[in-house]
């Protein structure tokens, strides 16, 4: 510790070189902070988009459905759906953090415009009012969203995804016919009027997706069941606690129900997360190597410039370990001070970039451009100081080796 102040004074000898070293460390720090901010923003954005795009925070489905299709399945067959779902919902909606519980009916079949071709669809019957309460986003591009009120027979509506509407040549106000098989295998048909055109945000899904009111779906499939229930929470961070509470509350229901958190049903999220983390570590490794190479060279120069002085210090009894401590402290100061400068610059850069409201191209599979917003990641600001300290200590290994192996006699003769 006693060499800390000594090292700081040594750094002040050649201020220009020290400033360059600090700038290298600071630039690396800013780069990592911006990357971490972008990745966190992407994670958070993708997570909330998936939760509010249709996953909900929790899914309640029959254990039979989960056993047959797995936890990750996004649709559940109505044959293995939930009877008495209203009671389940009433129970769950009383629990803390629960904003709303929405019943879903998954269906697939054919859709046809009179005189046109039939096109296959995947659809979902929903409760629009509860969807809204749960913060589910409907991106209406033309017309309007589904009406909240339960439609009377003959007044059934549908919203079509843009790709499906294009395939059908359908517009808001058009009358279409849905064809789907009921749970007992009968083929049913139902006329529906196009309320609006929407996008799911995912190109592939837009070519086949439609949404109808839950009552319309039950009428089409001639059933009172629902495929599953989606639970919306007031805070994503409460998901794990809510899962436990919901599971306990539903333990006595028969047939048994399974409660699955959103993350287990979001394979895409996990893939994107792993990809981004891989990119982050790759970039981090590049920054690590660049900073080590650049600062190691500087530290070697500071040692080589002080050969005679180091020789003198060794001559008057300074141990090699004490010489090493001196160089390591200089490296440590460069790492910590450079990272702190980088933290300040990084915070300013994040605020500046966010203020510009730059648009990013749609991410893979999405259709809308997104706002570039970098997240402040407090733990990254703290961790980077430690990381840069380690980086500089690694960079100091070669200079330390050189400083401690200097021959005292040769050093004293050094000019």
């Amino acid at each position, binding site marked *: 510790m*006693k060499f800390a102040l*000594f090292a700081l*004074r*040594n750094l*002040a*000898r050649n201020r220009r070189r020290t400033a360059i070293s600090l700038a290298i460390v600071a630039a690396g720090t800013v780069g990592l902070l911006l990357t971490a901010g972008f990745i966190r923003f992407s994670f958070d954005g993708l997570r909330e988009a998936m939760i509010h795009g249709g996953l909900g925070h929790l899914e309640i489905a029959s254990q039979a459905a989960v056993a047959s299709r797995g936890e990750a399945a996004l649709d559940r067959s109505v044959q293995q759906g939930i009877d008495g779902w209203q009671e389940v919902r009433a129970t769950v909606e009383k629990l803390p953090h629960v904003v709303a519980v929405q019943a879903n009916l998954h269906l697939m079949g054919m859709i046809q415009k009179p005189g046109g071709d039939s096109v296959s669809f995947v659809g979902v019957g929903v409760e629009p009012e509860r969807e809204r309460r749960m913060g589910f986003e409907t991106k209406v591009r033309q017309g309007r969203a589904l009406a909240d009120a339960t439609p009377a027979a003959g007044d059934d509506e549908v919203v079509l995804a843009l790709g499906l509407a294009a395939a059908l040549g359908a517009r808001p106000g058009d009358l279409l016919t849905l064809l789907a098989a009921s749970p007992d295998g009968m083929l049913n048909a139902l006329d529906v009027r196009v309320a609006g055109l929407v996008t799911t945000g995912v190109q592939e899904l837009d070519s086949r997706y439609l949404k109808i009111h839950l009552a319309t779906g039950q009428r089409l499939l001639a059933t009172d069941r629902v495929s599953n229930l989606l639970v919306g929470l007031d805070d994503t961070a409460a998901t794990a606690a809510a899962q436990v509470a919901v599971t306990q509350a539903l333990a006595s229901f028969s047939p048994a129900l399974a409660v699955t958190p959103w993350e287990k049903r979001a394979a895409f999220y996990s893939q994107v997360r792993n990809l981004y983390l891989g990119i982050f570590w790759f970039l981090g490794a590049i920054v690590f190597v660049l900073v080590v190479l650049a600062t190691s060279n500087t530290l070697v120069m500071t040692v080589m410039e002080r050969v*005679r*002085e180091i020789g*003198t*210090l*060794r*001559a*008057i*009894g*300074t*141990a*090699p370990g*004490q010489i090493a401590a001196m160089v390591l402290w200089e490296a440590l100061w460069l790492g910590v001070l450079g990272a702190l400068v980088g933290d300040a610059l990084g915070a300013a850069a994040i605020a500046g970039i966010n203020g510009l409201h730059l648009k990013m191209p749609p991410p893979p599979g999405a259709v809308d451009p997104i706002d570039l917003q970098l997240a402040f990641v407090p733990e990254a600001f703290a961790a980077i100081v430690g990381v840069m300290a380690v980086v500089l200590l690694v960079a100091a290994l070669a200079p330390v080796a050189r400083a401690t192996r200097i021959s*005292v*006699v040769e050093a*004293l003769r050094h000019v």
Partner: protein
Amino acid sequence: MSSPLFAARAAAKSYELGETEVVALAGVDLEIAAGEFVAIAGPSGSGKSTLLHLLGALDSPDTGSVAIAGRDLATLSERERTLLRRRRLGFVFQSFHLVPVLSALENVEYPLWIDDVPAAERRERARGMLESVGLGHRLDHLPDRLSGGERQRVAIARALVHRPAAILADEPTGNLDSANGAAIFELMLAVRREHGTTFVLATHDPTLMAHSPRRIELRDGRIVSDTAGPGDPAKGAGA
């Protein structure tokens, strides 16, 4: 009879200069008793600095031996040699070799600092040492704010602060004008008188040679004369 403070026995040292082997010391026998004041003279390349390096445990002879206070330096580990230099020896160099980022007081404190002497004690001893060399008014000055004579006084204070048995000085007046050189010489003599510190100096300075109690002359790595001045026992040439 007690053993001498320094004893070199047939100490030889060569260096490689390119492809040429340069003999710096060609088998030197020498004894220096505690409290002696010895000036070693000789032309450049005669082996003065090499002899000082061997006596100061900074280097090892190729053949022969060097002992300090009866301990053969060849038997000491690197750590023991470091501690020996730190606690028993002091060094003064021609170019002062002060640490430029440390004040005069901190430079003098340094040998105590690396030896973990408590802060209050080392500060007090360093202050007292600087006052004794006439620099009590320059404690907080950095070396580049001091004159050559003042820097060498700081270097002597640094070499003395841990109360070493001996001070080895390589051309201590080489970078000083004659007035400052004489003052530094007087200072060293006074320290020797007061503390009984042994001084071994390598020098080109004829005045310093003329007034040194014991004078050794080296040529081509060999001792060619070893004479005592008034008040000091004469030593035989080549011992």
